[in-house]
């Protein structure tokens, strides 16, 4: 199997997102909210290296009613 490199980041599709706010409740350590209820995702790229954070990111992705969240692998270099 090909060894995958790079860090994972949580991303939101701003067009799909309607500001339900579930992601903030499911992953408060990764997602904060602006005054209009739309998610601001922690842009610290190392954040998802922590397994418990990765779990909450996956919970947030599954819990999004608009399916607006996804994980993206950033390739280094």
């Amino acid at each position, binding site marked *: 199997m090909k060894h995958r490199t790079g860090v994972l980041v949580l991303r939101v599709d*701003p067009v799909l997102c309607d500001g339900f706010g579930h992601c903030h409740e499911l992953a408060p350590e990764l997602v904060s909210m*602006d*005054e*209009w209820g739309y998610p601001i995702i922690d842009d610290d790229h190392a954040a998802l290296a922590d397994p418990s954070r990765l779990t909450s990111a996956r919970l947030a992705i599954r819990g999004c009613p608009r399916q607006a969240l996804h994980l993206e692998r950033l390739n280094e270099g």
Partner: protein
Amino acid sequence: MMMDADQLPRLLSGTPGVPRSYQQHHDAFAVAERRPSLFSELEASGLIGRGGAGFPTARKAQLLRAQHGRHKVIVVNAMEGEPASHKDAALLATNPHLVLDGAEILAAIISARRVIVALARNNTAAIAHVTRAIRERERHDRHGPTLEIQTPPWRYVAGEESALVHWLNERHSLPQYRPQRPTVLEIGGHATLVENAETCAHVALIGRFGAEWYREVGTSASPGSTLVSVTGAVERPTVIEVALGTPLRTVLALANADPEPQALLMGGYGGSWIPGDDLEVRYENEGLARLGASVGAGVLGVLGRSGCGVVETERVVKWMANESARQCGPCAFGLPALGADLAELSAGGRDAKVALERLRERCGVIVGRGACRHPDGVVRLVRSCLDVFHDDLANHARGEVCPAALSGRRFLSVPRLEREDELVWG
């Protein structure tokens, strides 16, 4: 016939407002070659796209050349969403065939079969010029790619490349979310290259006279000439052609603008203010970057001494907020919020001090969170306003509204808000 290299105008040569016919065009510029090998010439020219993003044209063409498919598309973007920009209209009203030549050269480079010229629906003069030009070409030259015109409704974001391509596909001018950049856009499943109309005209000149000729004007990082739409404190709004790297003082003089402006709006309505005290700055991206500005879409808004930067910014931001496609929350709600803060400040109301603080914070919250760069442009404008009009803002926040704001003298041309009642002003 060979044009003199250092002779300007290049793009606007001829009679402004009288489009050259195919025959006149060939007499003036000689016959264009359409060789795929012109790519190396394009690369050597160092041409930078004139649509606003300042992306090297050769790199974009390279990306499209690497795509497979025999039905690639070239879109000539002459939507001109910037209300202060008239350069593409001026170009099409003078040398429409130059734009079409450039599009055909690009088509040869990436091996595209179809060229679409996208013009705003209300720009009837340009539509007439291009229609006539295409008909003339069909009579003279039956090779080359097919040429057609498409006319999306005019909106600020309708000229954004993903919104334009989306309109051509599905008749909705909505910017698309593209997580990976650069992305190859597609029309009907075929890879598509979107280039600004002025960029195409430059390509046409490079294709004729070569990269070396092209680089004889301009600086090494920003070669060539460029079209500038000058508005605001000018005798009359004009489009002029200058060499990149010309000092701002000279650009203003050529446009008959106020020689001692208070500030200049560079790039467009999603651009930046720069103070008017240093006019020796060169008009090209490297020189302007030190002031946090860029050439952008070639708009130069001149704010006279009798104007108020806060009021002007408020007008532009409100209009830009209205032009949001309202797809993304941070843009749909954030931009009207910025407009409301600026309105509070320009009126010097009771909450002006709070509004100033909130404006700073909101800029940091909104930036980078839209599908397209529309909110980022507005934030850039507001941030430059916070910077350049720092003292004025402090006065407004104390309730000391400047006489300029009260005088009702306005410099920038902002279209009337069509749907103001729909806005979410506070």
